[in-house]
C-alpha cells in the first residue's frame, strides 16, 4: 500500500530513496587476505587476517552451489569497535556488539578533513585547538554524530605506506586526549570513524595517556569505525552512516559493511 508523499519523515525518506535524490556511498574496503591488519609486537596475540577456504564450487563437494568458509579477527578489515574492545569499557552495560543499541548503528556524520595536514605529516595529531579552529570555520559539531576523520589514507591501501610501519613503530594520524575529551564530553559524539587501521595515531602508544581514542571513546560507551574508504565522497555535514556490526555473542567488534547515505549533489 503506498503512502502519500510528505506524510511522514520516513515516507519522505523513502520517496527520496526511490526517486534517486539520495545516494549510497560504500565506505567499506573489500575483505581479502591481502588487506592489512594491525601489527602488534609479536609476543602479543596477533590480529588474524581474513582467510577464505572454498567449500564447494559447483563440483563434487556441492554440484549446484558455491560457498566458502571464512575466518578472521573481529577487528579485521573495515570494522566496528564496541566499548568492550578496550579495558576502559569493560564494565560498561551493553558494551559488546550483540548488546549495542541498534539505534546507534544509524547516525549522522560530520566529516573533518585533515587530508592536507596528514599528507604533510604522517604523525599529525588532531588536537582540541585544531577542532575549535575547525568549528570556527565550519560550524559547531552537532551532538550524536560520528566524527569522520578524512585523511584519504585509504588511497595508500596496497602499499607499505598504509600501515607505515617503521623501526620506531607505525606512523599515521590520529587524535590526542584533549581532542577526544572534547569530542566525547563536549560534543557527545557517537564515535570516531577513520580510514587508518586504528582510531588512534600510529604512535599513540607513546601518548599520555596511551591510545587516547580507544581509551576515551570506549571508556565512555562510544564506538570506533576503522579501515573506511571514500570519506572524500561525503559532505562535511549531512551524511548518514549505516554501520551494523554482526551480532556476535560477547563480541568486541565486528567486520561490517559500512555505507553512507547522502543527498545526490551533497558531496
Amino acid at each position: 500500500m503506498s503512502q502519500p508523499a510528505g506524510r511522514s519523515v520516513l515516507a519522505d525518506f523513502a520517496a527520496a530513496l526511490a526517486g534517486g535524490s539520495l545516494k549510497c556511498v560504500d565506505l567499506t574496503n573489500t575483505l581479502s587476505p591481502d588487506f592489512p591488519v594491525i601489527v602488534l609486537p609479536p609476543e602479543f596475540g596477533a590480529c588474524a587476517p581474513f582467510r577464505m577456504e572454498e567449500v564447494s564450487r559447483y563440483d563434487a563437494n556441492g554440484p549446484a552451489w558455491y560457498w566458502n568458509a571464512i575466518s578472521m579477527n573481529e577487528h579485521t578489515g573495515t570494522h566496528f569497535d564496541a566499548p568492550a574492545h578496550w579495558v576502559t569499557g569493560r564494565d560498561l552495560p551493553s558494551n559488546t556488539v550483540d548488546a549495542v543499541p541498534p539505534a546507534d548503528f544509524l547516525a549522522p556524520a560530520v566529516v573533518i578533513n585533515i587530508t592536507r595536514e596528514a599528507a604533510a605529516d604522517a604523525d599529525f595529531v588532531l588536537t582540541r585547538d585544531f577542532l575549535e579552529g575547525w568549528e570556527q570555520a565550519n560550524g559547531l559539531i552537532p551532538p550524536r554524530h560520528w566524527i569522520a576523520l578524512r585523511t584519504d589514507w585509504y588511497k595508500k591501501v596496497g602499499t607499505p605506506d598504509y600501515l607505515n610501519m617503521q623501526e620506531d613503530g607505525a606512523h599515521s594520524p590520529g587524535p590526542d586526549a584533549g581532542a577526544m575529551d572534547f569530542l566525547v564530553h563536549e560534543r557527545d559524539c557517537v564515535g570516531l570513524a577513520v580510514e587508518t587501521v586504528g582510531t588512534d595515531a600510529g604512535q599513540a602508544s607513546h601518548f599520555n595517556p596511551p591510545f587516547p581514542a580507544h581509551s576515551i571513546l570506549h571508556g565512555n560507551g562510544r564506538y570506533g569505525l576503522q579501515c573506511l574508504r571514500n570519506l572524500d565522497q561525503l559532505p562535511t555535514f549531512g551524511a548518514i552512516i549505516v554501520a551494523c556490526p554482526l551480532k556476535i555473542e560477547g563480541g568486541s567488534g565486528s567486520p561490517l559493511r559500512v555505507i553512507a547515505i547522502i543527498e545526490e549533489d551533497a558531496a
Partner: protein
Amino acid sequence: MTEPLDKPKRKDPLKRSHVGHVPPAPRSRAAKAMAVRAGQGRFVLQVCKDCAETTYPPRDRCPKCWGELVWRDQPDGATLVAETTVRTSMDLFFRDHLPWRIGTAKLDAGPVAIVHVHGDVADGAAGGARVRLKLCLDRGGNPALFALPETETPNMQDDPQLRTFTANPKHRRVLVTDGRGPVGQAVAEGLIEAGAATVFLGNADPLMRYPGQASIEACEGIETVPLDIGDTRSVAELAGQLGGRVDILVNTAGFTREGGVGFGGKITDLQAGLDIDVTGLMRLAQAFAPAMSGRSDDGVNAAAAFVDVASVYGLTGRSGFAGMAASAAARLTLLAGLKSEMRQTGIRVMSVLTGPVDDEWHQSVLPPKVAPRQVARAVVDTLANGHDLTPVGDIAKDVLARWQADPLLTIREETE
C-alpha cells in the same frame, strides 16, 4: 671422469614432457626396513642373532640357520668382481636411462651383491677393483647398493645414474617458502652455493619490511615471491605462476610459541600453528605436487623433491612448547602421507628435523641450539645424498636416536 652437467637449455615447447617412471617396488617388509635406514644415510645389513651370518638382500629369517635377523651398521667397502652395461630393458624406468652400469661386488661385510656402478669406476675394473658402496634410495623409495669410486672424483655427483638417486640442487630451481625468517634465508643462500639455478624465496607480507631483507634481495639467484602458506589463494596463485618451474620445494615455514596444554598455552597460538604447519603443508602439496609429479624425469632440471623442515619434537611432544610439538606431529604425519603418494611419481619427500633453532622464539631455551646455517647445510646434504630423514643439530640427533630406541620413554623424557 664424469663430465660436469651443462646448464639445461630452456625446454622446447613442442616436446612432450618426458613421463617419469619408478623402478620396481620392494616386495618385503624387510626391504622397507632397509629403505627406512637407507633414508637416514646409514649403511646397514642384516646380521643373524644366532649364527652371526651377515646377509643380503633383505630377508625375514637367516638363510643359513633360520635365526632372527637384526640390522647392523656395516663397513661400506667392497671389491667389484664383475661388471657389465645394460643396454636394453623391459622396465620403463631403466629403458629411460640406458645404458646402465651394474656389477657384482663382494662386500667387506661378507655378502655378494648386485650393485649399480658409478661411471667413474674404471672400465674393466672387475678384476678386483676396490669401491665404496652407498646404500641409496631410488626414485620409488626402494633401497639399492651403489658402487662409487673409492675416492672422490671430479663432478662425481653429476654422474647420470647417481643423479637419479638424489635430488641434487645443482641447476635446479627451488622454492623456499619462508624468506622472512633466518632459516629460510640461510637455506636459500645455501642452495645457491650448492649450485641451484634459482631460489624463489617466499614472502608472506610483501608490504612489510623484515630483518635481512637487503642482503637477501641483493643475493644473485634469489628471487623473492609473494607466498603466504596460511592463505590458500596466495599459494594457488604462486603455483599458477611457478608450478611448472619448481624442481625442488623446501618448506621452512613454521610457527613456534611457548605454552603448555592445560597451563599457559593459548588456543589462538595452537590454531595459528596448525594453520601454518599443517594446513599450510597441505596447501603447498595440493598446489605444487601435481605439477612437480608431471615433471619428475624431464631432464637435468626435472622436478625432484619436496623437503619439509620441522621440529624433532613432533616425534615426542615437548614440555613448554606443547602446541608447537603438536602441530609438528601433525605435520610429520601429513608428510608421511605425502611421501607415500609421491613415491608413485618419482618425487622424493624428505624431512629435516631440527631441535630448537637459535631464533627469537627460543630465547628461554638453553643451548645447544641450531644455527640457521646448520639447517641450510642439512637441507643441501639431504638433497645431494637423496636421504629421507635428516636430524640437524645435537638435540635433534639425540632425540631421534632415543626415540628410535625407545619411543615411549623418549616421549616421557621430553614432556616432563
